């Protein structure tokens, strides 16, 4: 069954080979409830290109082995591939050294690592952690926990009706008491792109560190952590066409060096005796136990894949598609877009007059269309807008204007059912 073709190509980026891209993702060939799959839930998770699937298969078929300490051939192959994957992540983030890349289970684990390791060691009563109302729960709860443990206070920058950070409130909340500022690069609920570089300068001027939740940043364009001047930057593999269960934390070397270990166990040590244990150097100090070896290698293949398309091209294509989608949704009666920041990436969140997002989602699902409904792990955002939930369509490299058209037709059907 052929996947959805663009109806007319009102967006045309020379060199963006959409047909070839769609052909690379086997799952796009399937039907759902007898209709071609229209996958618009990329902010939740992305589909995988054949090359990533093959890479995982090849790892398990040819050179699967535990890493770092084996002297046999398979172990050496696996170790080289795993460490090459680390290097690939370093290159994707623009970091200076491999030892600044800690491979984790994902963004959530990475943020917890920073909160528990850097946070516990550097926070006390009277100190403050500054987040925002926009944050995903994974960039709220770890800070709540560490504030409770250390006696520090949590503060949050408010947002305006467009879903943008209120910058003068940020300035007011950023004081000498602030030790850590933790913000998303791109909001998963609203698509707002935060001015990270501008904020980093302010954070550093106050002597604090900046932790960036990059889960929705990495998939939508080039990221350069040095350019952004982030102290920590976390992302997840499964959001950028890689496997689940793998992600990475970038941390400035001086910071990571000074941080106490987080999880204890094998690999993060140099020597262990009952009386005394010497911890390993970076990055291994923060990688206890057998890592997700296959996941890391698969992630490297995914990063290669998007790099081959070109992150700038992806950003430009998705921007045009977002614009097309915004105008299309605005033309549907009774639809209100939530999140209208001047700079957005990848997300179309909306509500429909008198129709709950859950019902929208169920009816769209019957049409083969996958969107997400609910609070998107961003309850403070929902509370700000006074709504229980939104319906969210989110874009990936393989989406087309045809997908948006199908979404609009699906929404007309929703109106019909509830007329």
């Amino acid at each position: 069954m052929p996947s959805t073709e663009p109806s007319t190509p009102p967006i045309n980026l020379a060199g963006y080979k959409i047909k070839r891209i769609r052909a690379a993702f086997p799952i796009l060939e399937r039907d759902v409830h007898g209709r071609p799959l229209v996958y618009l839930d990329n902010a939740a998770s992305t589909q995988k290109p054949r090359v990533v699937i093959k890479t995982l298969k090849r790892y398990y078929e040819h050179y699967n082995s535990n890493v770092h300490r084996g002297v046999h051939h398979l172990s050496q192959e696996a170790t080289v591939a795993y460490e090459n994957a680390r290097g690939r992540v370093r290159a994707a983030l623009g970091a200076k050294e491999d030892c600044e890349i800690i491979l984790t289970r994902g963004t959530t684990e990475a943020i917890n690592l920073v909160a528990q390791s850097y946070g516990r060691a550097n926070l006390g009563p009277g100190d403050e952690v500054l987040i925002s109302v926009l944050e995903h729960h994974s960039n709220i709860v770890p800070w709540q926990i560490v504030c409770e443990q250390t006696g520090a206070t949590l503060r949050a920058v408010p947002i305006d009706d467009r879903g943008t950070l209120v910058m003068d409130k940020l300035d007011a909340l950023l004081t000498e008491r602030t030790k850590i500022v933790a913000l998303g690069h791109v909001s998963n609920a609203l698509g707002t792109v935060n001015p990270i570089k501008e904020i980093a300068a302010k954070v550093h001027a106050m002597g604090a560190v900046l932790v960036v939740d990059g889960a929705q940043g990495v998939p939508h364009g080039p990221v350069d952590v040095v350019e952004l001047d982030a102290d920590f930057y976390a992302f997840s593999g499964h959001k950028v066409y890689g496997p689940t269960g793998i992600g990475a934390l970038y941390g400035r070397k001086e910071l990571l060096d000074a941080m106490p270990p987080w999880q204890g166990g094998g690999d993060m040590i140099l020597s262990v005796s009952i009386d005394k244990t010497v911890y390993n150097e970076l990055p291994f100090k923060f990688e206890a136990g057998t890592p997700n070896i296959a996941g890391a290698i698969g992630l490297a293949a995914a990063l290669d894949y998007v790099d081959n398309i070109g992150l700038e091209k992806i950003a430009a294509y998705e921007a045009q598609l977002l614009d097309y989608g915004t105008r299309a949704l605005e033309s549907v009666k009774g639809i209100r877009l939530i999140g209208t920041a001047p700079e957005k990436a990848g997300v179309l969140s909306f509500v429909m007059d008198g129709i709950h997002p859950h019902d929208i989602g169920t009816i769209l699902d019957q049409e083969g269309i996958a969107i997400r409904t609910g609070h998107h792990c961003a309850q403070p955002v929902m509370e700000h807008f006074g709504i229980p939930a939104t319906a969210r369509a989110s874009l990936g490299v393989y989406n087309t204007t045809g997908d948006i058209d199908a979404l609009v037709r699906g929404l007309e059907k929703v109106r019909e059912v509830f007329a």
Partner: protein
Amino acid sequence: MSDLRELYQSVILDHNKRPRNFGVLQGATHEAHGHNPLCGDKIHLQIELDADGKIAEVAFSGEGCAISKASASVMTETLKGLPRDAAERLFDQFHDLVTGKGGNPDELGKLAVFEGVKEFPIRVKCATLAWHTLRAALENTSTPASTE
């Protein structure tokens, strides 16, 4: 597609648009709050039990999806005049119905319109929220009811 018609059939759409017994009950003897954390459905259920332990009056308020609202509405219609143990029995019947385990159509009466929910397992909690809240109300527990 017929599954969708089953789920969003006219009775359910009607009860969503014009929920019965929607509002605040003066003189409630029992009440409870319910919450579906998965999708944010919220319900406040109030009951007035008379001297014989029968449900004399019942009302609900809150916000949520069409299934949860319609379910609460039809439930309140069905409950009026019932003794509380009959209400408890209906909970089990309704739960069986929406999870595809059966349910007795004679006992269920109008509630049988929710049979379509069994084809949409993700929506079961929407349909049962009002009933979990009912149970909490009858026990008059102060902890909010949840579908978890």
